[in-house]
């Protein structure tokens, strides 16, 4: 699968219009200068040879060098990744903090006012694009209160926490509805199962029933949904980091694409793909740990 991703990333950027040599040498560089750059980068080689070289370098952890800064792409990504990790971690935490209680309440109060209100909130969250939610939070929260910066990332832990709060909340508002709906449906299904009736008949009830029997058995689909959501969150980070001027990999991808820095674009794209694959793999493992009925084929 990873080789497939690498191949797609390589081919897509091969067919992207534009001459990388001109990008490096300058728009008004002479044909001789352009030719020199093409030779230096091996751009005159057959595509298959370029692909072989690209894969060979990748296997050695070499993502190439940025056309713009001449720095290793791995270093450029490394400089930005911590911001995105902050964003995703905080975003996932907020998603869980919002969605688990609301999902549980919606399931336990099925078809009552609370359930309808929570589903209505979910619909609202789903309807609002992240860039719009972000701007609204900036205009209605950050600017009037001054509690949060209007953009950028801080230096100290406290500054970082303040800077990441609204972007993470934006992510959470967009991703919580999926988890709420998934968790609600899974819990309702579990609550209607025979073993819950059995548990009730032997006197297990209330919070203990929910925690030990319902929630644990309903968590499997929730974890899978969360993994899917993390994939979306990663791509959402491109929008969120742009909206909040956060110097993470999402913003880096946008700037690299605008500057036609193809090696950097390749590096970022590959990173995104790898993270999604890794998260899905992790979700399978966690699901198996939560539910003994699930086995992982090896």
């Amino acid at each position: 699968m990873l080789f497939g991703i690498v191949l797609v990333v390589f081919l897509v950027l091969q067919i992207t219009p534009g001459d990388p040599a001109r990008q490096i040498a300058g728009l008004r560089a002479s044909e001789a200068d352009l030719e020199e750059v093409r030779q230096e980068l091996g751009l005159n080689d057959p595509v298959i040879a370029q692909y072989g070289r690209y894969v060979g370098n990748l296997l050695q952890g070499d993502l190439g060098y940025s056309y713009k800064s001449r720095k290793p792409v791995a270093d450029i990504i490394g400089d930005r990744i911590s911001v995105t990790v902050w964003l995703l971690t905080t975003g996932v935490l907020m998603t869980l903090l919002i969605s688990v209680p609301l999902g549980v309440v919606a399931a336990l109060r099925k078809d009552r006012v609370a359930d309808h209100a929570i589903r209505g909130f979910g619909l609202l969250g789903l309807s609002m694009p992240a860039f719009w939610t972000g701007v609204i939070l900036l205009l209605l929260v950050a600017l009037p209160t001054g509690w949060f910066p209007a953009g950028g990332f801080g230096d100290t832990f406290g500054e970082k926490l303040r800077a990441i709060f609204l972007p993470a909340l934006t992510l959470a508002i967009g991703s919580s509805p999926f988890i709420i709906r998934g968790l609600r449906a899974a819990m309702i299904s579990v609550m209607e199962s025979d073993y819950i009736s059995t548990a009730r008949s032997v006197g297990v009830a209330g919070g203990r029933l929910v925690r030990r029997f319902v929630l644990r058995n309903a968590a499997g689909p929730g974890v899978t949904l969360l993994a899917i959501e993390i994939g979306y969150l990663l791509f959402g980070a491109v929008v969120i980091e742009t909206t909040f001027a956060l110097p993470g990999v999402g913003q880096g991808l946008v700037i690299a694409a605008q500057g036609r820095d193809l090696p950097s674009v390749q590096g970022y794209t590959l990173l995104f793909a790898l993270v999604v694959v890794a998260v899905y793999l992790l979700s399978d493992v966690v699901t198996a740990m939560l539910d003994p009925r699930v086995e992982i084929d090896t």
Partner: protein
Amino acid sequence: MRRRTGIIVFVLMALLAGACGDSTDGTEATGDTATGTTQPGTDATVAPGDEGGGTLTAVRFESFDGWVLDSAAAYSSYQTHQAVIEPLMRFGADGQSIEPGLAESWDYDPDGLTITFTLHEGARFSNGDPVTAEDVAFSLGIWNAGPNFGGSWDAIVGVTGEGREIVMELAYPDNTLMAVLASSISGIMPMDFGGMTEDEYYNNPIGAGAFVVDEWSIGGRIILTPNEFYYDPERPYVDELILDVVTDETERQILFDSGEAQIIEYLSPTVAPQYDPADVYVCTVHSVEHIGLNVLRPPFDDLLVRQAVAYAIDYEAIDAALGEYFGLPSGILSPNILNWAPPSKPYFRRNLDMANDLLAQSSAAGGTSAELIYDAGNALDTLVVQIIQANLAEIGIDVSLSALETGAFLDRAFSIDADMTIWNYGAISPNISDPMIWIYATGWLFSGFETDTLFDQFLAYADAATNEDMQAIVTEIQDGAIDEAAAIAVAEGSYLHAVNQNLTGFASAPWGLYYYDTIGLGG
């Protein structure tokens, strides 16, 4: 804002070697064309000592190109380079004059073929080493080796000097040289990169400018702090300069409104009305929005078709659509720069009858079609191309619009691979020779029209005896542009910045570049 790409002059300069004769100092402002710079809400007069340090944050949408001076393609790069790697001279905010940089004075003797600079007392690099003639000579070698701007300094054949005196020996007089030396591409670097390798230097650049680099990355934040060895102990007036790239237009405005950023560089005219008018700094009219018509193939290889297009365009409709920061075009050369002169005849205005008559007499009688390419990321162009499409449909020219990603657009534009190309340009140095060279370097603004005539005109300009002679040549170029209609100016306008009203000392040249070290945070 549009990227201003490098100026290629090496061919011109090489051939200039054959030019000779008396010459004037091209830096003298005529006064005729200076219209001043509008500075709402700012005080261009710095009151040293009133500013009290602090952090100045400027936000731009363009990524920095890195520290290689020759690789500068974005205005954000020129802007940053000059803060750290200062040239011997600076351009004035009026777009016409040259002011002291590292050199406090200079004496240009075109007859003696020398320029003698006197450096500021105590001019030092940020590592503490004094600036010497050897550093200037070394920098000259680096400048000339660049694939983009290399050759701009070919007139200089030697650099000598002792102490604060730097003497440049010229092979021939050159009216354009002083303007080039005042632009950021002529930044002074320490000899042998201050003992570093080239790569090390460009990762940790050292200059004799007002700022030193504390942190930087391409596409990321740049933090500059004061150079403790700067020749002027008063400047810079801030303790820290932060330059951020923010790609989202709304976020840029929110940062400005929140006070977290004090300057938003190169506002799009389409969003400027959303700012408090008192915050919008309107540079003197300078940029030229134009279309290039490909003369190398039908239908625009026919002069009559080109003229028909020129008369079919509704300039007033474009003016109205672009808003208050744009106006009707006065010629093809960027105005409000030293030695600019208007055409001797009226510039194109809409005359549909004439357009129809011309087309009826042309090889495209009965109608034709053409492709117009534009940068999809440019809101201004996106607007203008639709007007042009509608205008040309009225005379039977079916225009198909191709919105291209910036890189693909530039590739096709520079390859002259489209029937019509829309673009916008301005200068980077204070002399009309700059736009002339730009037009030459772009194959007459992406039209493919022959540039031999322009080349000869440039040589004559560089060698002209008086400013009047130079302006006569400029008028000749403007007239030729009307006669041939290979490239048609459709509007001219101002570059814009959002500037916090408390700032002092903000003063931008017509092309939008300004100096950070003169800015104080004010009250």
